[in-house]
């Protein structure tokens, strides 16, 4: 065991040193240094962009459709005593359970007063590498839950282990009575495996490098340097390296404005003539509506706009021109 532990420490150190030579892809925004463990840094990155980008797929209007109404409710239970255990991540599990009224009635009958004095418990067993028979767990811990709770997140602090949970009653005399027992789950390990196979042996140092690269973290090769220099020379001058923040899908541009004001102006030019006349606005022919009216709408920038509107009679014999002149200034 101690040899393994030493290898583990060594590997950790190598990886840590790789991470330290942090490798700026594009000049990075300075993030406030919070006292976080490196492992958490990694996790904070993982999947964050994927989440943000995924969100934009569903970016339409917010909170719409109160008017559509909700379908009726799902059943509160399915009439079966059961408890299910699922893995959320290397350390956390989630469990939900259902105990039917007939089962509680039976317990009440059997236990009488003790039922009401009993505490409801989740008993979490470490059953790594054994066939659990109810008595041979490596260890267990208890979580007391209220009468109305029907699910719970369990912190096992134990990556790479197997777990099983009982929901039951802790009786006044200290006995634990199981009502339902869950399935067994295994949490993944949080780092590289200590198991290697002979045919595919790899030196520690080399694995550490590959490991770091796989996560896009550290760099000790020419890759990083060359990349950084090329970036500096060719691509990013001024604008990006200033560290100004870029509109990020994580935030959403609308959220970081507090008080704000936008004023735009548009100009509507409308009028009417004979329905079969030809009309030109700024020398460009426009289409009339059936009744001979027309309406046009323009974004109005600062400055002067001269807008000759010319109508020509259907027989091309008569012509009328009216020329509005509009000046806009913004102060």
């Amino acid at each position, binding site marked *: 065991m101690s040899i393994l532990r030493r290898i583990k420490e060594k590997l950790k150190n190598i990886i840590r040193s790789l991470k330290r030579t942090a490798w*700026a892809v*594009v*000049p990075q925004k300075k993030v406030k240094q919070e006292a976080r463990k490196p492992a958490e840094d990694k*996790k904070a990155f*993982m*999947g964050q962009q*994927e*989440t*943000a980008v*995924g969100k*934009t*797929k*569903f970016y*339409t*209007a917010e*909170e*719409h*459709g*109160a*008017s559509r109404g909700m*379908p009726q*409710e799902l*059943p509160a239970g399915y009439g079966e005593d059961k408890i*299910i*255990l*699922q*893995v*959320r*991540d290397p350390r956390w599990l*989630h469990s*939900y359970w259902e105990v039917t009224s007939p089962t509680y009635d039976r317990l009440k009958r059997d236990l009488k007063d003790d039922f009401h004095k009993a505490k409801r418990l989740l008993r979490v067993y470490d059953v790594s590498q054994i066939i659990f028979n109810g008595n041979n767990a490596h260890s267990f811990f208890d979580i007391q839950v209220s009468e109305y709770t029907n699910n719970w997140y369990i912190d096992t602090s134990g990556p790479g282990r197997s777990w099983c949970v009982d929901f039951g009653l802790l009786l006044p005399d200290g006995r634990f009575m199981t009502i339902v027992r869950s399935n067994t*789950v295994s949490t993944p390990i949080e*780092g590289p*495996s200590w*198991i290697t196979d002979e045919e595919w042996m790899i030196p520690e140092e080399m*694995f550490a490098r*590959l*490991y770091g*690269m*796989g*996560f*896009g973290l550290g760099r000790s090769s020419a*890759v990083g340097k*060359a*990349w950084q220099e*090329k*970036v500096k020379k*060719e691509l990013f001058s001024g604008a990006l390296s200033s560290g*100004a923040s*870029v509109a*990020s899908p*994580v935030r*959403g*541009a609308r959220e970081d404005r507090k008080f704000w004001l936008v004023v735009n102006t*548009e100009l509507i030019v409308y009028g009417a003539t004979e329905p079969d006349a030809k009309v030109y606005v*700024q020398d460009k022919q426009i289409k009339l509506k059936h009744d001979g009216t027309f309406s046009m*709408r*323009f*974004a109005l920038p600062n400055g002067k*706009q001269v807008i000759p509107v010319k109508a020509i009679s259907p027989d091309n014999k008569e012509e009328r021109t009216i020329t509005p002149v509009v000046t806009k200034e913004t102060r």
Partner: protein
Amino acid sequence: MHKGYLCLVLHSHLPYVRHPEHEAFLEEDWLYEAITETYIPLILRLESLMNDRVDFRLTMSLSPTLISMLTDGLLQERYLRHINKLIELSHKEVERTRWQPEFQRLARMYLDNFYQARNTFERFNRNLVFAFKGFQDAGKLEIITCGATHGFFPLMDVCRESVRAQIRVAVSHYESVFGRKPRGIWLPESGYHPGHDEFLKEAGIRYFFTDSHGILHGSPRPKYGVFAPVYCKGTGVASFGRDLESSKQVWSSVDGYPGDYAYREFYRDIGFDLDYEYIKPYIHPDGVRINTGIKYYRITGNGNKEPYNPDWARDRAGDHAGNFMFNREKQVEYLYELMQRKPIIVSPYDAELFGHWWYEGPMWLEFLIRKVVFDQKTIRLTTPSEYLAENPRNQVITPSLSSWGWKGYSEMWLQGQNDWIYRHLHAASGRMTELVKSFPCAQGLLKRGLQQALRELLLAQSSDWAFIMGTGTHIPYAVRRTKEHLLRFNRIYEEVKSNSIDEQWLKDIESKDNIFPDIDYRAHQ
């Protein structure tokens, strides 16, 4: 002689959203936007590569829900209506911006885009899946499948029959569309749980992808990290690990390419910016402002946005393609020395990232492919199938539980806002298994009931609903979809059990939730 491989993977998926009961339905826009902004631009870019006889390789997953929507007559009809409205709006925009040349130019750009989208859509007889199939038949694109409705497999491990159904239904759907079995799969959300490779093997699938830590934390330790695939212990199905370095350059909005100030800003859309009365005919009939897809600004930085300049953006996309390639070359050279074997760099992205969110993405992809094919000799584009044919000898390990979601495991789909769904989903899975056992060879109305039961269950399982609840926007719709499908499932279950199927009602939901017409309900066992 090349020293390594680059495997570009685009994962395209949208949940099944189709509401014949409403004349206009807001969430159907997810599909229409993706067609205009992602799928058609990608098709046009790949066509341009084909026309120039560029020998490229690209891997792309098309989820069965997406394929089903792209081939659905009603949605095709509605897409035409949608794009016609946009064309009308763009014409108005060209007029409106007459005195603002920097904007009028952009209005014309969108008008061209929309015309081109309509033409492309009609050129393929409204069925864009044909376009992708064409690239596959030409040997350039490898289309892989995904979970039938994009259910998140790790949270189905307590009812593995559902994992099997997600895979089986997807595979037979793929076969009916492409005329052959899929070689690979994109596990929904890249969610892998040890043991699920058994179902892949059973369905004839030869490879899948995991996130980096799926391989790196596998056991025994993978000799080449994520730079060579591994075979799963016991099944021999190959698993390719994601390279996060190349991922980050494209995904990250902060230090990745899409955040560049020259690129178009996603969040400024005329649907929100323009006068309400003017824009009203082009937003939702209920009067809710929505994105139109017409966006005039570039990212610029904080505060005042400046008008988008397509020429700058194009140049920058070229620079970024060159930069990406340069980095992969260096990465491959370094790895080749270290590994004494040709590394494979696997770079997967959400397809909808390209074009929809990163407007210049499809252009960047085309530039990158051209550069890799013509401008260097260190790396070669490949697909997983091609790689495995050339490099059949790989290490055998058991990959680790993993996903590409937030924090790398299951938390995105299992947290305070969405954990309530599993109690119901798992109960429904158990009931479905029970029905299949009770009726191993149903016919007639009973068979229709069982088929619809499986459709409803699969639709309820889409990871998108839990995802949306988890992100905190659009929650009512996601909740509604989850409940609706589960309620329909439960009703069918009761009716089948009591031998009293209401045919009229069944017919109604068959027409609403009409996905997978030939579904084999026995896939769920």
